[in-house]
Each structure stands twice: as C-alpha cells, then as structure tokens.
C-alpha cells in the first residue's frame, strides 16, 4: 500500500520539523541580514539601488489574486527605489484558513503575510513581529492611523502585529467614488431599457430583471440565454445569498447580526436569520427560482464558475460585495468580442450599478457606510521568518512615499498618465484601456495591493491617491451607458446610486471583525460554526424548494438546534464591551 495515511504524512512533517528545528527557510535569497544602502544614482540624481543590492522578499495574501510576471516594469522601478522586490503569492482555490494552517505546519513562512481570518492563528503561534518599535521609526506607517485606532489593533499582549491597509483616506478627506461593499447590483442596460425607474424593493428589482429577460431572452448574439439573477454560495462567500435580510431591514454590515439601536444607550443584538424580513426575502428567492429567474446551477457553482459566468455579461443581477466580483470583470467587459461584432460588453451596458433595496419602500438603508471602516481583524504583517524585519518595515513605509504610491496606482508618468497644466493627472483613452488589459497588468502594473496604501487626496493636495477617486478620471473612465445611468439618476458616485443614510458609525461597528475570529473554544464559537453549516446547506435548499413553508419550518428547527442563543449572547457581550471602551475614551451615547 503506497498510499500513506494523511495523518501519518502530517506526523512525519511534524517529526521532521521537530528534529530539524533549526532550519530557517523563508525564500529570501540573501545572506546579508541588513539592508544595503543605495549605491548608484539615476538620471534625476536620486539614489537608486543596483540590481545586486536589491533584496527579494516574499509575501502571501490569503485572498484570491493573480501573480504578476517577473521583470514587471513598475515592480523593477519600485525595487530600485526601495531596495526590495516583493514576490506576491495568493490563494489557489483553497480557503484562507487552510492555506495559513498549511503554511504554519510546513514551517516555511513568507517574509510578509496577510493572513486574512488566519491572522490570529499566526499570532497565537508567535510567528509575527510586533510593529510597536518600528512605528516610531517610520512615520509613514504611524501616520496610517490615530493612536486610538492603533490601540484597536493591539492584541491581548498589548502589541500591534498587523495593520489593515484598506479603506483609509489620507488626512480623513473622503473622496470615494466607489461602493466597495455589498448591494443588489443590476446591469445598466436593464435600467436604461425600463427608462431609469426608481427601484426600492425586491419586488421592483426582480420585476425589472424578469421583464428584461422576457423581452430580449438572449445576448445580442442570439444564442447565449440571459440569466436574471445568480447567487454565489461557494465556501464562506455564501453570504451573497445569506446576509441580505440584514441590509433589507435597513441595517449596516455588522455581518453576523443586526444591532438594534431603538434605544441608543442600550443596543440590542438581533438575529437576522429568523426575522420576518428573512422569510419574505427567501420566499421571494424561492418564487423567482421557480419562475426560472435564478441560474439553475447557482447552488453548485464554484467561485471560478461564478466569475466566468458573470464575465459573459449574461447575468443581469446579483447580490455581492464590489471587491468580490467587479475587479475580475473589468478586463472581460473592456474586450472587443467577436460575438458582438467587435463590440464591448461595457458599451452594451453590462456594467453593474448598486441599488439600496429595502424590504419595504421608503425605508432608510445602510448598504453603503460613509467614512472609513476599521477592520482590525487582519492586515499586513511581518513574520518571524523574515531575516531583516527592519528592512521589511522600511519597505512597508517606503511604498507609502508619494512617488512610489503614484507608481503603484497611477503608473509611470508619460507612459501611464499625463500631467495637465493645472497639475492634475489624467489618462488618455488608450492608457485607460491598457490598465484594464490582463497582459498589461501582469507585465507592467505592480500595485502591491495588500501593502499599505492610501485613499483620498495625495500629498500634493490636488490629485487623488487612486485614479478611481480622481473625479475627472472617474467620469472619463465610465463607459457611455454607465455614465448615462449616473446622469439619469443624478448620481455623482456609486454611493449616490444607493442613497444610504449618512450617519456616524457606532463604536462596535463592524461586528464581523469580531465574529471572523471566533474559535471553537467557546460555546458561542461552536454555535457560530454550526449555524454556518446549517445555513450553508439549508438556504440554497429553501430557494430551490417545491414546498417553501414546510422546508422553511424544517430549516428553523435545524437552525434552533445549533443554539444560536449562545452565539448571540457572546455577540451582545462584545457590543457592550466595545461600547464601554468607547465611552471610557469619551464617546457620548
């Protein structure tokens, strides 16, 4: 029997690593432990690192992503400026936790890591380097958050081990044009065809989708059938089907429950899975499935299936978070297709816009949350395998320098963007197309997207840190049908399309930064895991059910067996604790 048992393989791995505890492989091909100084100067007289002085480092991000090619042009430029060339690797089909577990078990850690929801595990195993001493050395890093915000990153031992890099506006000036969160999305051609109606409820939304499919049936090629709606249920991303009841009731994305603030002094945690709204939402889904509006394979599709389905432009509507699908569609939607006689999907109006639906018309919604969300549960970290942590932190600081930041997100001046007489950066149509091209992304663009970065206005006071937030670029970058749609609704940004309530965030928000790190050590954690499994199995089943009422009741019974009350009690305790901390710091409410 050649097949060795899984556990034996694992045991052997452990035995070997225990015997050879001194091995320290981390893929950094350097023998020198300290950073070399820049040794030459470029044409402008700036110090640059020579090829020999550049160190290679590795970073793993527990997220799906695409590796860039070696010799990437901007990567090389950044390496010359910072002395570090960072090789980024991503998840390849597995879940974040599994990948992090496998990395820990193998003992081969990268120099930098974003562990996603495996971050705490890395910390528990003493595999991360504390940021504290380096924060004072590198003002660029320190500047990312206020002292109070940094405190939220502190682990139980009082130290900071990672920093979230997203959603952070420089000097707090909000220039956001996008909506990175969740929404019911709809293709602009559907809205256009219906004369840009007001859409406030699920019923109106599905009526629009169904009517459009009824009218056109297929894509312009006359063969590919249109699909009104799909829902992703692969792995933890089944939230696309699972959590809309929370938003439909007008609550923000606390992720694991609703926090009712009818009495602001005493917030109450409410389970959104069992509300009347939840039942109404799933009943609607069930009816639409019976009508054939949902993709019949939605419950068995993998994330890759989902993206490739969306890339064809045939799906009119979906509920998801922007970052989870939109970036993958930019390339395919900007391509000239033979099936469209050389036309493009974005020109056809396949771009998605978000809608702020609620269960009844006229309610306030909070699909979009204004202001920066602080997610302290994960972020970029330096591992103990990194031979020179100081250099790693220096690199993280260097990539926040304005010139490097511009290289990462704007590109090379003259090649990827031009500077107008007014000092504003802009791109030509050709440059914009190139930035959507997958080959160009691999060979030219290097954004180090999981390293520290800024949103908002850059240090010159004029240009946006990111092109997508530069007002002129944002509008120029919109395909015509999308621009028309914005115009028709009088929306300046994606967030305007949703029309969320502009309110201050509560101190416990977002609560998912707590639930993401629940482990099996507590009753609430066990309940949380069981609830996830029951929902994962039952929710698609309910949508596809021929007998909604009885299946809904069976689901509720199975759900109740998981003891959700244990989980809710712990969630309530966390809300109270966070509120208390905020009050101690002077929060009034």
């Amino acid at each position: 029997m050649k097949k060795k048992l899984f556990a034996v393989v694992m045991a052997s791995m452990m035995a070997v690593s225990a015997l050879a505890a001194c091995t320290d492989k981390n893929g950094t091909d350097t023998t020198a432990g300290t950073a070399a100084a820049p040794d030459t100067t470029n044409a402008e007289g700036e110090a640059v690192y020579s090829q020999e002085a550049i160190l290679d480092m590795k970073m793993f991000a527990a997220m799906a992503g695409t590796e860039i090619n070696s010799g990437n042009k901007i990567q090389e430029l950044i390496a010359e400026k910072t002395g570090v060339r960072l090789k980024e690797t991503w998840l390849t089909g597995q879940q974040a936790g599994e990948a992090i577990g496998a990395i820990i078990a193998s003992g081969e850690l990268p120099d930098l890591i974003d562990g996603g929801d495996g971050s705490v595990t890395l910390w528990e195993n003493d595999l991360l380097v504390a940021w504290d001493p380096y924060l004072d050395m590198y003002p660029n890093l320190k500047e990312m958050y206020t002292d109070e915000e940094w405190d939220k990153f502190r682990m139980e031992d009082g130290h900071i081990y990672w920093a979230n890099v997203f959603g952070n506006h420089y000097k707090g000036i909000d220039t956001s044009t996008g909506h990175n969160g969740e929404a019911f999305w709809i293709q602009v051609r559907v809205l256009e065809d219906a004369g840009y109606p007001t859409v406030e409820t699920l019923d109106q939304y599905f009526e629009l989708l169904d009517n459009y499919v009824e009218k056109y049936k297929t894509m312009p090629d006359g063969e590919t059938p249109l699909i009104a709606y799909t829902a992703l249920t692969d792995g933890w991303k089944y939230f696309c089907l699972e959590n809309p009841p929370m938003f439909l009731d007008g609550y923000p994305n606390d992720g694991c429950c609703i926090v009712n603030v009818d009495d602001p002094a005493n917030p109450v945690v409410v389970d959104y899975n069992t509300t009347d709204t939840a039942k109404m939402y799933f009943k609607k889904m069930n009816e639409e499935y019976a009508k054939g509006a949902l993709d019949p394979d939605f419950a068995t599709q993998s994330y890759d299936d989902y993206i490739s389905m969306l890339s064809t432009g045939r799906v009119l509507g979906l509920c998801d978070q922007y970052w989870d699908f939109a970036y993958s569609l930019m390339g395919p939607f900007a391509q000239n297709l033979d099936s469209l006689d050389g036309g493009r999907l974005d020109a056809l109006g396949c771009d998605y816009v978000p809608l702020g639906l609620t269960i009844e018309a006229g309610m306030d919604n909070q699909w979009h949350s204004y202001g920066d969300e602080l997610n302290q549960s994960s972020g970029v970290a330096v591992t103990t395998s990194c031979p020179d942590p100081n250099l790693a932190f220096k690199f993280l600081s260097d990539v926040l320098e304005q010139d490097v930041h511009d290289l990462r997100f704007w590109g090379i001046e003259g090649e990827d963007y031009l500077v107008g007489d007014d000092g504003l950066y802009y791109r030509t149509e050709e440059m914009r197309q190139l930035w959507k091209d997958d080959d160009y992304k691999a060979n030219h663009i290097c954004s180090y997207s999981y390293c520290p970065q800024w949103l908002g206005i850059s240090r010159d006071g004029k240009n946006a840190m990111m092109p997508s937030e530069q007002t002129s670029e944002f509008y120029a970058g919109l395909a015509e049908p999308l621009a028309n749609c914005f115009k028709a609704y009088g929306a300046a940004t994606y967030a305007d399309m949703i029309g969320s309530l502009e309110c201050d965030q509560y101190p416990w928000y977002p609560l998912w930064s707590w639930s993401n790190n629940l482990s099996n050590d507590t009753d609430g954690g066990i309940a949380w895991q069981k609830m996830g499994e029951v929902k994962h199995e039952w929710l698609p089943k309910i949508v596809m059910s021929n007998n909604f009422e009885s299946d809904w009741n069976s689901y509720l019974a199975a759900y109740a067996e998981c003891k959700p009350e244990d989980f809710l009690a712990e969630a309530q305790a966390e809300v109270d604790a966070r509120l208390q901390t905020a009050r101690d710091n002077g929060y009034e409410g």
Partner: protein
Amino acid sequence: MSLSSTSSRRKKKTSNGVEFTAKEFKRQWILIVIAALYVIYGVVFNYLPLAGWIMAFQNYKYKTGVFGSKFVGLDKFKFLFSDAKFLQVIRNTFCMGALILIFSTITAIAFAILLNEIKNIMGKKLVQTISYLPHFLSWIVVCGIVSDTLSSTGIINELLTKFGILDKPFLFLGSKPAFWPIVVFTNLWKETGWNAIIYLAAITSIDPALYESASIDGAGRFQKMWYVTLPSIRPTIMILLLMNIGNVLNAGFELQYILGNGLVQSVSRTIDIYVLDWAINGRNMDFSLGTAAGIFKTAVSLVLIVGGNMLAKKTGDERLF
C-alpha cells in the same frame, strides 16, 4: 507472470528452510543490499513518522511542540467519537470506499475479460490505451469534466430533457442521493482501464492448453470465460482485493472536496476532509485531533486487512500473510 506462482515458490523455499550462514550471505549480498534499501525506506518514511502519533494523546500546540505540549490521554478520541459530524464522515468514507472497492473490482475484471476476447490486436491495443488514459488526468481536470457534464446545461441534462425523461434539468451535483453514485462512477471512469491491466496480465499467463481442452470438451466462449479464465485469475483477484480492503477508508479527498458543496456536505465529507478542517484549517489548527482521526483510520484499515486475510485463510484462498 501471475502473483500466485511467485508466492507459492517463495513458500516452497521457506519450507525448504534456507539457513542463514556467512556463505549464504556472501552468495546473496547484492540481493540483501537491494532489499535493505527498501527496508530502510519503509522504516524512515512509514515507521519513524509513527512517533508523531504521540500528538494524538497531547493537546498539541505548534508553539510548544511535541516536547512541551500537555498530555491529555484519550481526550481527543473522546471528542472525536462524541462529535456527530465525525460519525457522519466515518459513514460517508466507509460507504463510498466500499462502493468504490466493489464496483471497481467487478468492472476491472469484466473489462479485462472482455478485452481479452477481442481478436483484432490493433483494436484491442487501441481500446486498452484509450481506456487507461484517464488514469493520468488529475482529479481537478476530471472534476471539471464531471461538473460540466452534470450541470443543468450539460450533456446529460440536455439528453434527458430532449428525450422527455425529465421536464426540467435535474441538479445532479446538488442532490444528496446522487452524490455517492457520482463519486463511484467517476472513479470507475478514471480507473477501470488502469485497474484492468493487472488482470489482463494474469489472463495472458493462463496456459492456452486449458482453453484447447475446454474447446475439445465442447465449451463455448462464455463457458470458457466462466470455467477457465475466472478460476485461473482467482488468486490475483483475491490478493488485489485483500490489498485494496485496507484502502477502503482512503475513499478519496480531492473528488469529494471539489465536487462537494453546501447542499451535499452531509454526505460528501470524508475523514480526510474532516482532518483538513480540524488540523490544517487556520482557525482550529488542532493537529492532535487530526492525528487521532488518522490513528483511527489506520486501526480500522488494519482490522479490515487482517480480517480479510483470516477469511481468505478459512476459505482456502490465496492470502497476503
């Protein structure tokens, strides 16, 4: 050459009793060196790692290692057997493993016999080559093919709806009763050709005189298959069956992991997936529990093999030891 002849010859030698003397050692030293390499391989890669089993009796933490972790006795095993999910994955693994074993053995034998009956050499070679090629595909590719074929717009549903057997596409991969058959069928498709090779080899070594005399006695084609071919390869069948019984709990990992989804998770998860979930998944990282599950798997496999072997001994069939 069939396995039966080698093993019977070996038996004869040991019963003759070759004495282990210096002279004998000198005569056979090359053979002994070659054999020793395999023994070392087995010890290093199959026996030394068993030391890691100690983790199953500890509350192993990566931070403290084998030597610093606390011993907890049988706590991990207690947790396993009180976890309803573990009992569920045992059922899934055992049922899928047993189904795969039974069906793959039967189809491989049948396929080998049928292939043997083809008189056209070119045709025979062609069929054999094509049939074992899927063995070299990775499970990822095979699963891609399966999920495309079984999707609502896949060829199976197209045919079923076209011929009016179904009025709307059936979601095969979302159906619990369909999951095990899909797993078994996929295994058969991928491995039948490969598994048949060894039976074909056994059939080739059957003495042609047996067939001749059967013909003279008036046996037809099917009678020759039944009375000559099958009994002649019986020892091979028994040995392979015994060896594969130990693999019943290795019902698979990739196939179930890739084809599984929320709807069918209660029938799709195997012990290996459970171990992955508990031991490797960053949120739990409980190597101890994973090791305990592994030990359980080994113990059951051992019982199955020994039991199968004893049964074979009783019925007077060929056996492993």
